[in-house]
């Protein structure tokens, strides 16, 4: 705790060196195991496909995926598809975050409002929003706006509830402290509730981003001219499962990267603020 690592760096004892080596060895082992599993899986897949143990036409194979990737790249459409899906996801995510925050603040502000709306929130929360897909296009029309609406539908309520829970978990005593200074409700919001909820806000973002991806893919299934979801639909329409698998691989990488981005932000904020 109060140790200054910089000062002690030179003076590591033999035991400590051994401990550090042990930690390092374990870390390496884990890293090797992780990559090992990945490589083994890919190799097995490739092998199984090339020896026809499994049908590469159906299950595809790493080399076929690479090939598809390459041809998409040389056609110049790869980045367009990724870009469109990313754009929709980010718009949905940002809108969801902003609207979610606003709604959560409103519900925090008025206890009466929040109690009145409670049953509606439960229904909206538990309803599988996917079911609304078919009527959504009727109402919103087929276009990017429908995709983004789908995304919002899927992500908004979860985000609002996560954020509101965060607000309500802020220690009553911190709020009391502000009240002893005669703070207004707005000041309590600004000076305690919001800053104290930063960690829970970020963990809502982690859920929100996942939901946004789901929303965009569902949206693109319903209506789209381009994007990764479109590629999946198109690929299965013309039965190019390589294209489907390739899109899924890209999708999983993109989604994982975004999630990790927010997780990184989270660790940074928590480290920074020691909240």
């Amino acid at each position, binding site marked *: 705790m109060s140790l200054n690592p910089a000062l002690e760096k030179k003076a590591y004892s033999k035991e400590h060196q051994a401990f550090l080596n042990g930690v390092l060895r374990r870390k390496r082992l884990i890293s090797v195991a992780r990559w090992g599993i990945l490589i083994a899986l890919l190799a097995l897949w490739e092998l199984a496909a090339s020896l026809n143990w499994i049908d590469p036409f159906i299950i595809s194979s790493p080399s076929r995926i690479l090939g598809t990737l390459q041809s998409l790249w040389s056609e110049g459409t790869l980045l367009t598809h990724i870009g469109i899906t990313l754009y929709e996801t980010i718009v949905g995510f940002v809108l969801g975050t902003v609207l979610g925050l606003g709604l959560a603040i409103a519900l925090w502000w008025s206890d009466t409002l929040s109690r009145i709306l409670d049953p509606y929130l439960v229904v909206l929360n538990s309803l599988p929003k996917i079911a609304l897909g078919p009527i959504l296009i009727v109402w919103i029309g087929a276009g990017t706006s429908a995709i983004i609406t789908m995304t919002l539908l899927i992500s908004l309520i979860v985000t609002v509830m996560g954020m509101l829970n965060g607000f309500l978990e802020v220690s009553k005593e*911190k709020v009391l402290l502000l009240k*002893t200074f*005669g703070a207004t409700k707005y000041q309590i919001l600004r000076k305690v509730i919001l800053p104290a909820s930063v960690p829970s806000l970020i963990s809502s973002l982690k859920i929100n981003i996942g939901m946004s991806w789901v929303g965009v893919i569902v949206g693109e299934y319903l209506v789209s001219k381009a994007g990764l979801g479109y590629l999946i639909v198109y690929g299965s329409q013309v039965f190019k499962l390589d294209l489907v698998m390739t899109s899924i691989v890209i999708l999983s990488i993109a989604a994982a990267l975004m999630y990790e981005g927010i997780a990184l932000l989270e660790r940074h904020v928590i480290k920074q603020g020691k909240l």
Partner: protein
Amino acid sequence: MHEKPLVEFQNISMIYHTLSGETHAVDRVSFDVHDGEFVSIVGPSGCGKSTLLSMAAGLLKPSNGSVKVLGREVECPTSDVGYMLQKDHLFGWRTIRQNVLLGLEVQKKLTPENIDKAERLLDTYGLAEFADHYPHQLSGGMRQRVALIRTLAINPSILLLDEAFSALDYQTRLAVSDEISGIIRNEKKTAVLVTHDISEAISMADRVVVLSKRPARLKEIYDIRLTASSESPIERRKAPEFKEYFNQIWKELDVHVA
């Protein structure tokens, strides 16, 4: 004793209403706190001590009776009263300086003089070099001192301390209460301290108010006169009369473990 009392508890009663029933917390309590005085309040757990302080701070309205501060009836929190809670509740996302200025910020009194005064307090009580640190970098005792300075920064006439030291470990607690009592006497503040620790109550206060178990009634008020070499609580604990007071109050409280 002095001229006009600074705080007057006048025939205070308090009944809490909840769905599961009503709780009679305080029953017709009256006492005064004079300018410059240090009053301790002791009483069994849950008897209504915090309730009394909350009413003085304007956070609660008594069901009956009234609390007056500086002759005016308390309606809502004002900068006349500084309230210090059990935990320091420093905000982890603010530096020590920003934490200290919190009250002024809320009360929209961030004038250069006030900021100056807060800086001077930090300086006087050995925290100037930590002004740009974050709370987690400070020890428990230092944090509690910062919390006190945050309260002093709004320049209250009276300080209310609700078990302000009980979150600290024993040795730190002795040292911190010593220091904080020094600061309070130094700044010539009036203070009311709620505590469970009888020794702490006696060693810090000019008077000790003993409350009955719930509903809190006034049982006794002890005027503490100790022949000690200094005002420091640690010194005062060594006074010969100390044990006398302790035994009397201990008996008065009649602690029985349920």
